[in-house]
Protein backbone atom coordinates (compact mmCIF):
# COMPACT_ATOMS: atom_id res chain seq x y z
CA UNK A 1 0.00 0.00 0.00
CA UNK A 2 2.82 2.34 0.94
CA UNK A 3 4.44 1.60 -2.39
CA UNK A 4 1.29 2.53 -4.30
CA UNK A 5 0.97 5.80 -2.37
CA UNK A 6 4.52 6.65 -3.37
CA UNK A 7 3.75 5.98 -7.02
CA UNK A 8 0.56 8.04 -6.91
CA UNK A 9 2.49 10.90 -5.36
CA UNK A 10 5.09 10.63 -8.09
CA UNK A 11 2.48 10.78 -10.87
CA UNK A 12 0.73 13.71 -9.20
CA UNK A 13 4.07 15.53 -9.20
CA UNK A 14 4.63 14.81 -12.90
CA UNK A 15 1.13 16.04 -13.71
CA UNK A 16 1.67 19.18 -11.65
CA UNK A 17 5.05 19.76 -13.32
CA UNK A 18 3.52 19.58 -16.80
CA UNK A 19 0.65 21.88 -15.79
CA UNK A 20 2.93 24.38 -14.08
CA UNK A 21 5.28 24.44 -17.05
CA UNK A 22 2.37 25.08 -19.40
CA UNK A 23 1.16 27.82 -17.09
CA UNK A 24 4.51 29.52 -16.61
CA UNK A 25 5.94 29.38 -20.15
CA UNK A 26 3.57 31.92 -21.76
CA UNK A 27 3.86 34.21 -18.74
CA UNK A 28 7.65 33.98 -18.31
CA UNK A 29 8.44 34.93 -21.91
CA UNK A 30 9.15 38.59 -22.65
CA UNK A 31 6.19 40.55 -23.98
CA UNK A 32 2.50 40.02 -23.43
CA UNK A 33 1.34 36.47 -22.65
CA UNK A 34 -1.57 37.16 -24.98
CA UNK A 35 0.57 36.26 -27.97
CA UNK A 36 1.18 32.82 -26.49
CA UNK A 37 -2.33 32.25 -25.18
CA UNK A 38 -4.06 33.18 -28.42
CA UNK A 39 -1.41 32.26 -30.97
CA UNK A 40 0.69 34.41 -33.26
CA UNK A 41 -2.35 35.94 -34.95
CA UNK A 42 -3.36 37.85 -31.86
CA UNK A 43 -2.93 41.15 -33.75
CA UNK A 44 -5.76 40.16 -36.07
CA UNK A 45 -8.27 39.53 -33.30
CA UNK A 46 -11.09 41.95 -32.61
CA UNK A 47 -10.85 43.97 -29.36
CA UNK A 48 -13.86 42.08 -28.04
CA UNK A 49 -12.10 38.75 -28.58
CA UNK A 50 -8.96 40.04 -26.85
CA UNK A 51 -11.05 41.19 -23.90
CA UNK A 52 -12.72 37.78 -23.82
CA UNK A 53 -9.35 36.03 -23.70
CA UNK A 54 -8.07 38.34 -20.96
CA UNK A 55 -11.16 37.55 -18.93
CA UNK A 56 -10.96 33.79 -19.50
CA UNK A 57 -7.38 33.55 -18.34
CA UNK A 58 -7.89 36.20 -15.67
CA UNK A 59 -4.88 38.11 -16.99
CA UNK A 60 -5.69 41.17 -14.87
CA UNK A 61 -5.47 39.16 -11.66
CA UNK A 62 -2.42 38.17 -9.62
CA UNK A 63 -0.26 35.27 -10.80
CA UNK A 64 -1.59 33.05 -7.98
CA UNK A 65 -5.20 33.73 -8.91
CA UNK A 66 -4.35 33.12 -12.57
CA UNK A 67 -2.87 29.74 -11.63
CA UNK A 68 -6.03 28.73 -9.80
CA UNK A 69 -8.12 29.83 -12.78
CA UNK A 70 -5.81 27.90 -15.08
CA UNK A 71 -6.02 24.68 -13.06
CA UNK A 72 -9.80 24.96 -12.88
CA UNK A 73 -10.00 25.48 -16.65
CA UNK A 74 -7.79 22.47 -17.33
CA UNK A 75 -9.83 20.29 -14.96
CA UNK A 76 -13.09 21.26 -16.64
CA UNK A 77 -11.79 20.61 -20.14
CA UNK A 78 -11.31 24.25 -21.15
CA UNK A 79 -7.86 23.84 -22.62
CA UNK A 80 -7.94 27.06 -24.58
CA UNK A 81 -9.00 27.94 -28.09
CA UNK A 82 -7.00 27.62 -31.29
CA UNK A 83 -7.78 30.59 -33.47
CA UNK A 84 -5.75 28.99 -36.23
CA UNK A 85 -7.79 25.80 -36.31
CA UNK A 86 -10.99 27.60 -35.37
CA UNK A 87 -11.89 25.16 -32.63
CA UNK A 88 -11.18 24.43 -28.98
CA UNK A 89 -7.84 22.75 -28.26
CA UNK A 90 -9.48 19.77 -26.60
CA UNK A 91 -11.68 19.14 -29.64
CA UNK A 92 -8.65 19.28 -31.95
CA UNK A 93 -6.80 16.77 -29.78
CA UNK A 94 -9.84 14.48 -29.49
CA UNK A 95 -9.97 14.20 -33.30
CA UNK A 96 -6.28 13.26 -33.44
CA UNK A 97 -5.76 11.05 -30.39
CA UNK A 98 -7.28 7.81 -31.81
CA UNK A 99 -4.76 7.79 -34.69
CA UNK A 100 -1.82 8.24 -32.35
CA UNK A 101 -3.14 5.48 -30.09
CA UNK A 102 -3.53 3.19 -33.11
CA UNK A 103 0.01 3.92 -34.31
CA UNK A 104 1.67 3.67 -30.90
CA UNK A 105 -0.43 0.69 -29.77
CA UNK A 106 0.20 -1.43 -32.85
CA UNK A 107 3.92 -0.60 -32.86
CA UNK A 108 4.20 -1.37 -29.16
CA UNK A 109 2.51 -4.73 -29.65
CA UNK A 110 4.64 -5.83 -32.59
CA UNK A 111 7.89 -4.48 -31.12
CA UNK A 112 7.22 -6.26 -27.82
CA UNK A 113 6.37 -9.64 -29.33
CA UNK A 114 9.24 -9.47 -31.80
CA UNK A 115 11.69 -8.18 -29.19
CA UNK A 116 10.80 -10.98 -26.79
CA UNK A 117 11.13 -13.61 -29.50
CA UNK A 118 14.47 -12.41 -30.85
CA UNK A 119 15.80 -11.64 -27.37
CA UNK A 120 15.03 -15.14 -26.12
CA UNK A 121 16.50 -16.72 -29.23
CA UNK A 122 19.65 -14.58 -29.07
CA UNK A 123 20.24 -15.44 -25.40
CA UNK A 124 19.67 -19.13 -26.04
CA UNK A 125 22.25 -19.07 -28.82
CA UNK A 126 24.57 -16.69 -27.04
CA UNK A 127 27.65 -15.67 -29.02
CA UNK A 128 26.43 -17.34 -32.19
CA UNK A 129 25.54 -15.70 -35.48
CA UNK A 130 22.02 -14.60 -34.61
CA UNK A 131 23.10 -13.17 -31.28
CA UNK A 132 25.93 -11.11 -32.75
CA UNK A 133 23.83 -10.00 -35.71
CA UNK A 134 20.87 -8.85 -33.61
CA UNK A 135 23.11 -7.04 -31.11
CA UNK A 136 24.88 -5.22 -33.91
CA UNK A 137 21.53 -4.48 -35.50
CA UNK A 138 20.21 -3.03 -32.24
CA UNK A 139 23.21 -0.68 -31.90
CA UNK A 140 22.99 0.48 -35.51
CA UNK A 141 19.21 1.00 -35.53
CA UNK A 142 19.47 2.95 -32.28
CA UNK A 143 21.86 5.33 -34.04
CA UNK A 144 19.47 6.12 -36.89
CA UNK A 145 17.31 9.19 -36.49
CA UNK A 146 13.76 7.80 -36.30
CA UNK A 147 12.36 10.33 -38.74
CA UNK A 148 15.11 9.58 -41.25
CA UNK A 149 14.36 5.86 -41.08
CA UNK A 150 10.77 6.81 -41.92
CA UNK A 151 11.91 9.00 -44.81
CA UNK A 152 13.93 6.13 -46.27
CA UNK A 153 10.97 3.74 -46.00
CA UNK A 154 8.72 6.31 -47.70
CA UNK A 155 11.25 6.80 -50.47
CA UNK A 156 11.69 3.09 -51.11
CA UNK A 157 8.26 1.55 -50.50
CA UNK A 158 5.93 4.42 -51.33
CA UNK A 159 7.72 6.65 -53.83
CA UNK A 160 9.84 4.21 -55.81
CA UNK A 161 8.06 0.85 -55.50
CA UNK A 162 4.57 2.39 -55.06
CA UNK A 163 3.50 -0.50 -52.83
CA UNK A 164 2.06 1.65 -50.08
CA UNK A 165 0.55 5.13 -49.76
CA UNK A 166 2.92 8.06 -49.15
CA UNK A 167 0.97 9.94 -46.53
CA UNK A 168 -2.19 10.13 -44.41
CA UNK A 169 -4.15 7.57 -42.43
CA UNK A 170 -6.81 6.81 -45.06
CA UNK A 171 -7.62 7.68 -48.65
CA UNK A 172 -9.58 10.93 -48.86
CA UNK A 173 -12.90 10.30 -50.55
CA UNK A 174 -12.14 6.59 -50.32
CA UNK A 175 -14.21 3.92 -48.56
CA UNK A 176 -15.26 4.97 -45.05
CA UNK A 177 -16.85 1.77 -43.75
CA UNK A 178 -16.55 -1.98 -43.66
CA UNK A 179 -13.66 -4.15 -44.78
CA UNK A 180 -12.43 -1.83 -47.58
CA UNK A 181 -11.99 0.96 -45.01
CA UNK A 182 -10.17 -1.34 -42.61
CA UNK A 183 -7.78 -2.49 -45.35
CA UNK A 184 -7.24 1.11 -46.42
CA UNK A 185 -6.37 2.12 -42.84
CA UNK A 186 -4.00 -0.84 -42.46
CA UNK A 187 -2.24 0.00 -45.71
CA UNK A 188 -1.70 3.55 -44.47
CA UNK A 189 -0.60 2.30 -41.06
CA UNK A 190 1.98 -0.15 -42.41
CA UNK A 191 4.92 2.18 -43.04
CA UNK A 192 4.65 4.48 -39.99
CA UNK A 193 4.06 1.48 -37.70
CA UNK A 194 7.02 -0.37 -39.21
CA UNK A 195 9.23 2.66 -38.64
CA UNK A 196 8.13 3.06 -35.04
CA UNK A 197 8.46 -0.68 -34.41
CA UNK A 198 12.02 -0.76 -35.75
CA UNK A 199 12.93 2.32 -33.75
CA UNK A 200 11.62 0.89 -30.49
CA UNK A 201 12.61 -2.73 -30.94
CA UNK A 202 16.02 -2.62 -29.27
CA UNK A 203 14.76 -1.72 -25.77
CA UNK A 204 12.61 -4.83 -25.36
CA UNK A 205 15.15 -6.98 -27.18
CA UNK A 206 18.11 -6.01 -24.96
CA UNK A 207 16.18 -6.41 -21.72
CA UNK A 208 14.71 -9.74 -22.82
CA UNK A 209 18.12 -11.04 -23.87
CA UNK A 210 19.71 -9.96 -20.60
CA UNK A 211 16.91 -11.39 -18.46
CA UNK A 212 16.96 -14.60 -20.43
CA UNK A 213 20.74 -14.99 -20.00
CA UNK A 214 20.16 -14.47 -16.30
CA UNK A 215 17.41 -17.09 -15.98
CA UNK A 216 19.29 -19.58 -18.16
CA UNK A 217 22.09 -19.51 -15.58
CA UNK A 218 19.76 -20.36 -12.67
CA UNK A 219 19.75 -23.68 -10.85
CA UNK A 220 16.15 -24.55 -11.70
CA UNK A 221 17.06 -24.56 -15.39
CA UNK A 222 19.79 -27.08 -14.72
CA UNK A 223 17.30 -29.09 -12.67
CA UNK A 224 14.76 -29.00 -15.46
CA UNK A 225 17.34 -30.10 -17.97
CA UNK A 226 18.66 -32.90 -15.78
CA UNK A 227 15.09 -34.11 -15.25
CA UNK A 228 15.25 -34.86 -18.94
CA UNK A 229 12.70 -32.27 -20.04
CA UNK A 230 12.86 -31.50 -23.73
CA UNK A 231 14.94 -28.35 -24.42
CA UNK A 232 11.93 -26.61 -25.95
CA UNK A 233 9.90 -27.08 -22.78
CA UNK A 234 12.78 -25.87 -20.61
CA UNK A 235 13.07 -22.74 -22.69
CA UNK A 236 9.41 -21.85 -23.00
CA UNK A 237 8.01 -22.98 -19.67
CA UNK A 238 10.95 -22.30 -17.38
CA UNK A 239 13.24 -19.70 -18.87
CA UNK A 240 11.05 -17.44 -21.00
CA UNK A 241 8.25 -17.18 -18.43
CA UNK A 242 10.63 -15.92 -15.78
CA UNK A 243 12.54 -13.67 -18.14
CA UNK A 244 9.27 -11.97 -19.09
CA UNK A 245 8.98 -10.32 -15.67
CA UNK A 246 11.59 -7.60 -16.13
CA UNK A 247 10.44 -7.16 -19.72
CA UNK A 248 6.92 -6.32 -18.63
CA UNK A 249 8.15 -3.22 -16.81
CA UNK A 250 10.13 -1.93 -19.78
CA UNK A 251 7.26 -2.42 -22.21
CA UNK A 252 5.22 0.35 -20.68
CA UNK A 253 8.19 2.51 -19.80
CA UNK A 254 9.12 2.33 -23.48
CA UNK A 255 5.91 4.17 -24.16
CA UNK A 256 7.43 7.54 -23.36
CA UNK A 257 10.04 6.89 -26.01
CA UNK A 258 7.43 5.61 -28.46
CA UNK A 259 5.34 8.73 -28.03
CA UNK A 260 8.33 10.91 -28.83
CA UNK A 261 9.10 8.72 -31.83
CA UNK A 262 5.48 8.85 -32.96
CA UNK A 263 5.65 12.65 -32.96
CA UNK A 264 8.36 12.78 -35.62
CA UNK A 265 7.12 9.75 -37.55
CA UNK A 266 3.61 11.16 -37.86
CA UNK A 267 5.20 14.29 -39.28
CA UNK A 268 7.11 12.31 -41.91
CA UNK A 269 3.96 10.48 -43.00
CA UNK A 270 1.53 13.38 -42.43
CA UNK A 271 -0.31 10.89 -40.21
CA UNK A 272 -3.20 12.80 -38.62
CA UNK A 273 -2.29 12.11 -34.98
CA UNK A 274 -1.30 14.29 -32.03
CA UNK A 275 2.31 14.40 -33.29
CA UNK A 276 1.33 16.06 -36.57
CA UNK A 277 -0.90 18.41 -34.60
CA UNK A 278 2.13 19.31 -32.48
CA UNK A 279 4.24 19.84 -35.61
CA UNK A 280 1.63 22.07 -37.25
CA UNK A 281 1.30 24.01 -34.01
CA UNK A 282 5.08 24.57 -34.05
CA UNK A 283 4.98 25.83 -37.65
CA UNK A 284 2.01 28.13 -36.98
CA UNK A 285 3.26 29.17 -33.53
CA UNK A 286 -0.14 27.99 -32.28
CA UNK A 287 0.89 27.88 -28.62
CA UNK A 288 -2.42 26.72 -27.06
CA UNK A 289 -2.44 23.61 -29.25
CA UNK A 290 1.27 23.05 -28.60
CA UNK A 291 0.69 23.02 -24.88
CA UNK A 292 -2.46 20.93 -25.08
CA UNK A 293 -0.67 18.29 -27.15
CA UNK A 294 2.24 18.19 -24.71
CA UNK A 295 -0.16 17.81 -21.81
CA UNK A 296 -2.13 14.96 -23.36
CA UNK A 297 1.11 13.13 -24.20
CA UNK A 298 2.25 13.53 -20.61
CA UNK A 299 -1.05 12.14 -19.36
CA UNK A 300 -0.64 9.19 -21.75
CA UNK A 301 2.80 8.42 -20.36
CA UNK A 302 1.50 8.58 -16.80
CA UNK A 303 -1.38 6.24 -17.66
CA UNK A 304 1.08 3.78 -19.19
CA UNK A 305 3.12 3.87 -15.99
CA UNK A 306 0.01 3.26 -13.92
CA UNK A 307 -0.86 0.24 -16.05
CA UNK A 308 2.68 -1.08 -15.60
CA UNK A 309 2.40 -0.64 -11.83
CA UNK A 310 -0.89 -2.53 -11.78
CA UNK A 311 0.22 -5.33 -14.07
CA UNK A 312 3.61 -6.05 -12.54
CA UNK A 313 2.42 -7.37 -9.14
CA UNK A 314 0.00 -9.68 -10.95
CA UNK A 315 2.89 -11.16 -12.92
CA UNK A 316 5.32 -11.29 -10.04
CA UNK A 317 3.93 -12.30 -6.64
CA UNK A 318 7.24 -11.37 -4.98
CA UNK A 319 6.57 -7.67 -5.61
CA UNK A 320 3.27 -7.95 -3.76
CA UNK A 321 5.13 -9.29 -0.76
CA UNK A 322 7.88 -6.69 -0.66
CA UNK A 323 5.66 -3.83 -1.77
CA UNK A 324 3.51 -3.54 1.33
Amino acid at each position, binding site marked *: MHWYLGRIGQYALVLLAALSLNFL*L*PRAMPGSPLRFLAGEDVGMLAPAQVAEIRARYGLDQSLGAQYVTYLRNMATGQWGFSYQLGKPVLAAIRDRLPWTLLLVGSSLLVATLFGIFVGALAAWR*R*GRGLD*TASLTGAIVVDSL*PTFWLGMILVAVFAVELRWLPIYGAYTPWGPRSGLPYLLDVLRHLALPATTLTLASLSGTFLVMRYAMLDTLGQDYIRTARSKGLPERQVLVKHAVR*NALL*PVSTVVFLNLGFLIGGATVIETVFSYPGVGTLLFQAVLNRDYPVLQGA*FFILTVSVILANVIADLVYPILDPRVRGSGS
Partner: protein
Amino acid sequence: MSTSGVVVPSTAAGFTHPRRRRDGTVGAVLFGTSSSTIGTVLLAVIVFVAIFGTSISPYDPRDVVARPYLAPSAAHWLGTNDIGQDIFSEILWGTRVSLLIGLIAATAAIVVGTLVGVVASLAGGLVDQVLMRFTDVVLTLPFLPLAIVLAAFLGPSLWNTALVIALVIWARPARVVRSQGLSICSRTYVEAAHALGGGFFHVLRLHVVPGVIPLALSQFILATSGAILTEASLAFLGLGDPIQKSWGTILYYAQARGAFLNGTWPWWVLPPGFLISATVLGFALVGRSLESVLMPRLRQH
Protein backbone atom coordinates in the same frame (compact mmCIF):
# COMPACT_ATOMS: atom_id res chain seq x y z
CA MET B 1 24.35 -11.68 -12.58
CA SER B 2 22.20 -13.12 -9.87
CA THR B 3 19.48 -10.51 -9.76
CA SER B 4 17.17 -10.04 -12.69
CA GLY B 5 17.51 -6.27 -12.77
CA VAL B 6 15.84 -4.16 -15.39
CA VAL B 7 18.85 -1.96 -16.05
CA VAL B 8 21.04 -3.46 -18.71
CA PRO B 9 24.68 -2.46 -18.43
CA SER B 10 26.17 -2.19 -21.87
CA THR B 11 28.81 -4.71 -20.92
CA ALA B 12 26.07 -7.29 -20.64
CA ALA B 13 25.07 -6.54 -24.19
CA GLY B 14 28.00 -8.56 -25.44
CA PHE B 15 30.46 -5.86 -26.35
CA THR B 16 33.20 -6.93 -24.04
CA HIS B 17 35.83 -8.71 -25.94
CA PRO B 18 37.82 -11.56 -24.39
CA ARG B 19 41.03 -10.09 -25.72
CA ARG B 20 40.35 -6.58 -24.41
CA ARG B 21 43.25 -5.10 -22.53
CA ARG B 22 42.03 -4.43 -19.05
CA ASP B 23 44.57 -1.72 -18.18
CA GLY B 24 42.06 1.06 -18.66
CA THR B 25 44.30 3.20 -20.83
CA VAL B 26 43.04 5.59 -23.46
CA GLY B 27 44.26 3.13 -26.07
CA ALA B 28 42.11 0.35 -24.66
CA VAL B 29 39.05 2.60 -24.71
CA LEU B 30 39.58 3.83 -28.27
CA PHE B 31 41.03 0.76 -29.96
CA GLY B 32 40.47 -2.11 -27.49
CA THR B 33 37.82 -3.88 -29.54
CA SER B 34 36.79 -3.83 -33.17
CA SER B 35 33.61 -1.93 -32.35
CA SER B 36 35.47 0.75 -30.37
CA THR B 37 37.96 1.09 -33.25
CA ILE B 38 35.07 1.65 -35.67
CA GLY B 39 33.68 4.28 -33.29
CA THR B 40 37.01 6.05 -32.95
CA VAL B 41 37.55 6.19 -36.71
CA LEU B 42 34.01 7.51 -37.28
CA LEU B 43 34.51 10.22 -34.68
CA ALA B 44 37.94 11.18 -36.05
CA VAL B 45 36.46 11.72 -39.51
CA ILE B 46 33.47 13.68 -38.19
CA VAL B 47 35.61 15.90 -35.97
CA PHE B 48 37.94 16.57 -38.90
CA VAL B 49 34.99 17.62 -41.07
CA ALA B 50 33.58 19.75 -38.25
CA ILE B 51 36.85 21.65 -37.89
CA PHE B 52 37.95 21.95 -41.52
CA GLY B 53 34.59 21.53 -43.31
CA THR B 54 34.05 25.24 -43.81
CA SER B 55 37.53 25.63 -45.36
CA ILE B 56 37.29 22.67 -47.73
CA SER B 57 33.69 23.25 -48.81
CA PRO B 58 33.53 24.25 -52.49
CA TYR B 59 30.91 26.97 -51.94
CA ASP B 60 29.43 29.11 -49.22
CA PRO B 61 26.21 27.20 -48.46
CA ARG B 62 24.40 30.49 -47.85
CA ASP B 63 24.98 31.64 -51.44
CA VAL B 64 22.74 30.82 -54.35
CA VAL B 65 25.23 29.30 -56.77
CA ALA B 66 23.18 27.44 -59.39
CA ARG B 67 19.69 26.57 -60.55
CA PRO B 68 17.47 24.83 -57.94
CA TYR B 69 17.06 21.04 -57.73
CA LEU B 70 20.13 20.18 -59.80
CA ALA B 71 21.24 16.53 -59.84
CA PRO B 72 24.76 15.70 -58.66
CA SER B 73 27.52 16.78 -61.06
CA ALA B 74 31.23 17.55 -61.02
CA ALA B 75 30.45 21.12 -60.00
CA HIS B 76 27.88 20.16 -57.35
CA TRP B 77 28.67 16.74 -55.90
CA LEU B 78 25.32 16.40 -54.15
CA GLY B 79 23.30 18.68 -56.39
CA THR B 80 21.52 21.83 -55.29
CA ASN B 81 18.54 22.45 -53.02
CA ASP B 82 15.24 24.23 -53.59
CA ILE B 83 16.82 27.68 -53.86
CA GLY B 84 20.00 26.67 -55.65
CA GLN B 85 22.42 26.32 -52.73
CA ASP B 86 25.10 23.63 -52.90
CA ILE B 87 23.97 20.65 -50.78
CA PHE B 88 27.49 19.23 -50.31
CA SER B 89 28.68 22.53 -48.83
CA GLU B 90 25.56 22.75 -46.65
CA ILE B 91 26.36 19.31 -45.21
CA LEU B 92 30.01 20.17 -44.56
CA TRP B 93 29.03 23.35 -42.69
CA GLY B 94 26.20 21.55 -40.93
CA THR B 95 28.65 19.10 -39.36
CA ARG B 96 30.01 21.83 -37.11
CA VAL B 97 26.51 23.00 -36.09
CA SER B 98 25.25 19.51 -35.26
CA LEU B 99 28.39 18.52 -33.38
CA LEU B 100 28.61 21.82 -31.50
CA ILE B 101 25.00 21.67 -30.30
CA GLY B 102 25.49 18.06 -29.23
CA LEU B 103 28.67 18.82 -27.29
CA ILE B 104 27.36 22.00 -25.63
CA ALA B 105 24.12 20.30 -24.60
CA ALA B 106 25.91 17.21 -23.29
CA THR B 107 28.44 19.30 -21.36
CA ALA B 108 25.73 21.31 -19.64
CA ALA B 109 23.67 18.19 -18.96
CA ILE B 110 26.62 16.32 -17.46
CA VAL B 111 27.72 19.23 -15.27
CA VAL B 112 24.20 19.59 -13.88
CA GLY B 113 23.60 15.84 -13.70
CA THR B 114 26.89 15.17 -11.92
CA LEU B 115 26.33 17.98 -9.44
CA VAL B 116 22.82 16.77 -8.64
CA GLY B 117 24.05 13.19 -8.40
CA VAL B 118 26.99 13.79 -6.05
CA VAL B 119 25.15 16.26 -3.84
CA ALA B 120 22.20 13.88 -3.52
CA SER B 121 24.38 10.89 -2.72
CA LEU B 122 26.56 12.70 -0.19
CA ALA B 123 23.86 14.77 1.51
CA GLY B 124 21.34 11.93 1.71
CA GLY B 125 18.11 12.37 3.64
CA LEU B 126 15.68 15.09 2.60
CA VAL B 127 18.04 16.72 0.07
CA ASP B 128 18.49 13.38 -1.68
CA GLN B 129 14.75 12.70 -1.66
CA VAL B 130 13.82 16.10 -3.08
CA LEU B 131 16.50 16.00 -5.79
CA MET B 132 15.63 12.47 -6.85
CA ARG B 133 11.90 13.18 -6.89
CA PHE B 134 12.62 16.10 -9.22
CA THR B 135 14.94 13.94 -11.35
CA ASP B 136 12.26 11.27 -11.67
CA VAL B 137 9.68 13.85 -12.72
CA VAL B 138 11.96 14.98 -15.55
CA LEU B 139 12.61 11.34 -16.50
CA THR B 140 8.89 10.58 -16.65
CA LEU B 141 7.87 13.54 -18.82
CA PRO B 142 7.85 12.59 -22.53
CA PHE B 143 11.17 14.16 -23.39
CA LEU B 144 10.80 14.94 -27.08
CA PRO B 145 7.40 16.68 -26.78
CA LEU B 146 8.82 18.55 -23.77
CA ALA B 147 11.82 19.64 -25.83
CA ILE B 148 9.52 20.70 -28.67
CA VAL B 149 7.43 22.91 -26.39
CA LEU B 150 10.48 24.51 -24.77
CA ALA B 151 12.19 25.08 -28.13
CA ALA B 152 9.04 26.59 -29.63
CA PHE B 153 8.79 29.09 -26.80
CA LEU B 154 12.48 29.98 -26.71
CA GLY B 155 12.80 30.38 -30.48
CA PRO B 156 15.38 28.90 -32.83
CA SER B 157 19.07 29.51 -32.20
CA LEU B 158 22.09 27.31 -31.65
CA TRP B 159 22.32 28.17 -27.95
CA ASN B 160 18.59 27.83 -27.29
CA THR B 161 18.52 24.40 -28.90
CA ALA B 162 21.51 23.28 -26.83
CA LEU B 163 19.87 24.66 -23.67
CA VAL B 164 16.59 22.87 -24.37
CA ILE B 165 18.33 19.55 -25.00
CA ALA B 166 20.39 19.92 -21.83
CA LEU B 167 17.20 20.62 -19.87
CA VAL B 168 15.62 17.35 -20.96
CA ILE B 169 18.62 14.99 -20.80
CA TRP B 170 20.44 15.82 -17.54
CA ALA B 171 18.26 13.53 -15.41
CA ARG B 172 19.60 10.17 -16.55
CA PRO B 173 23.27 10.98 -15.80
CA ALA B 174 22.12 12.41 -12.45
CA ARG B 175 20.59 9.03 -11.54
CA VAL B 176 23.62 7.08 -12.70
CA VAL B 177 26.10 9.36 -10.90
CA ARG B 178 24.04 9.25 -7.72
CA SER B 179 24.15 5.47 -7.51
CA GLN B 180 27.89 5.54 -8.06
CA GLY B 181 28.18 8.30 -5.45
CA LEU B 182 26.20 6.23 -2.95
CA SER B 183 28.60 3.33 -3.34
CA ILE B 184 31.58 5.66 -2.81
CA CYS B 185 30.00 7.25 0.26
CA SER B 186 29.57 3.84 1.89
CA ARG B 187 33.27 3.03 1.63
CA THR B 188 35.44 3.09 4.70
CA TYR B 189 37.78 5.87 3.60
CA VAL B 190 34.85 8.24 3.19
CA GLU B 191 33.56 7.25 6.62
CA ALA B 192 37.07 7.87 7.91
CA ALA B 193 37.13 11.31 6.27
CA HIS B 194 33.82 12.13 7.97
CA ALA B 195 35.07 10.82 11.30
CA LEU B 196 38.22 12.93 11.07
CA GLY B 197 36.02 16.01 10.80
CA GLY B 198 35.98 16.42 7.02
CA GLY B 199 33.11 18.73 6.10
CA PHE B 200 30.54 18.29 3.33
CA PHE B 201 32.51 20.17 0.68
CA HIS B 202 35.80 18.62 1.73
CA VAL B 203 34.49 15.10 1.22
CA LEU B 204 32.63 16.16 -1.94
CA ARG B 205 35.73 17.69 -3.53
CA LEU B 206 38.32 15.16 -2.39
CA HIS B 207 36.45 11.87 -2.52
CA VAL B 208 33.09 11.86 -4.23
CA VAL B 209 33.76 14.04 -7.29
CA PRO B 210 37.04 12.31 -8.26
CA GLY B 211 35.31 8.96 -7.78
CA VAL B 212 32.49 9.71 -10.20
CA ILE B 213 34.49 11.58 -12.86
CA PRO B 214 35.31 8.51 -15.02
CA LEU B 215 31.65 7.49 -14.93
CA ALA B 216 30.58 11.05 -15.72
CA LEU B 217 32.92 11.00 -18.72
CA SER B 218 31.33 7.89 -20.18
CA GLN B 219 27.90 9.39 -19.48
CA PHE B 220 29.05 12.53 -21.28
CA ILE B 221 29.94 10.61 -24.43
CA LEU B 222 26.62 8.73 -24.40
CA ALA B 223 24.75 11.99 -23.71
CA THR B 224 26.43 13.60 -26.71
CA SER B 225 25.15 10.87 -28.98
CA GLY B 226 21.65 11.30 -27.54
CA ALA B 227 21.87 15.08 -27.84
CA ILE B 228 22.84 14.92 -31.52
CA LEU B 229 19.84 12.66 -32.23
CA THR B 230 17.52 14.97 -30.31
CA GLU B 231 18.88 18.03 -32.13
CA ALA B 232 18.24 16.31 -35.45
CA SER B 233 14.61 15.59 -34.45
CA LEU B 234 14.00 19.15 -33.26
CA ALA B 235 15.55 20.61 -36.40
CA PHE B 236 13.54 18.23 -38.56
CA LEU B 237 10.38 19.57 -36.91
CA GLY B 238 11.33 23.09 -38.01
CA LEU B 239 12.84 24.19 -34.71
CA GLY B 240 16.38 24.58 -36.01
CA ASP B 241 18.12 27.87 -36.76
CA PRO B 242 17.50 28.53 -40.50
CA ILE B 243 20.68 30.67 -40.65
CA GLN B 244 22.99 28.03 -39.16
CA LYS B 245 21.68 24.87 -40.75
CA SER B 246 22.42 21.59 -39.03
CA TRP B 247 21.99 18.19 -40.67
CA GLY B 248 18.48 18.03 -39.23
CA THR B 249 17.60 21.43 -40.68
CA ILE B 250 18.74 20.27 -44.13
CA LEU B 251 16.40 17.27 -43.81
CA TYR B 252 13.56 19.56 -42.70
CA TYR B 253 13.92 21.58 -45.91
CA ALA B 254 14.26 18.42 -47.99
CA GLN B 255 10.96 17.10 -46.57
CA ALA B 256 9.17 20.46 -46.76
CA ARG B 257 10.34 21.25 -50.31
CA GLY B 258 9.31 17.96 -51.87
CA ALA B 259 12.55 15.97 -52.16
CA PHE B 260 10.41 12.84 -52.51
CA LEU B 261 8.14 14.20 -55.17
CA ASN B 262 10.85 15.46 -57.53
CA GLY B 263 13.24 12.54 -57.03
CA THR B 264 16.06 14.52 -55.39
CA TRP B 265 15.97 12.44 -52.21
CA PRO B 266 18.95 10.12 -52.95
CA TRP B 267 21.43 13.01 -52.65
CA TRP B 268 19.38 15.41 -50.51
CA VAL B 269 17.99 13.05 -47.84
CA LEU B 270 20.46 10.14 -47.65
CA PRO B 271 23.81 11.90 -46.95
CA PRO B 272 22.75 14.03 -43.95
CA GLY B 273 21.05 11.01 -42.38
CA PHE B 274 24.12 8.84 -42.87
CA LEU B 275 26.26 11.48 -41.19
CA ILE B 276 23.90 11.79 -38.21
CA SER B 277 23.86 8.00 -37.84
CA ALA B 278 27.64 7.72 -38.18
CA THR B 279 28.24 10.39 -35.55
CA VAL B 280 25.72 8.97 -33.10
CA LEU B 281 27.09 5.48 -33.66
CA GLY B 282 30.66 6.71 -33.16
CA PHE B 283 29.86 8.33 -29.82
CA ALA B 284 27.78 5.34 -28.71
CA LEU B 285 30.53 2.82 -29.52
CA VAL B 286 33.28 4.81 -27.81
CA GLY B 287 30.99 5.55 -24.83
CA ARG B 288 30.15 1.88 -24.37
CA SER B 289 33.80 0.96 -24.69
CA LEU B 290 34.75 3.46 -22.00
CA GLU B 291 31.94 2.16 -19.80
CA SER B 292 33.06 -1.45 -20.11
CA VAL B 293 36.69 -0.55 -19.45
CA LEU B 294 35.66 1.38 -16.33
CA MET B 295 33.10 -1.02 -14.91
CA PRO B 296 35.45 -3.78 -13.72
CA ARG B 297 37.77 -1.23 -12.12
CA LEU B 298 34.92 0.59 -10.44
CA ARG B 299 33.58 -2.64 -9.04
CA GLN B 300 36.87 -3.76 -7.56
CA HIS B 301 36.91 -1.09 -4.87
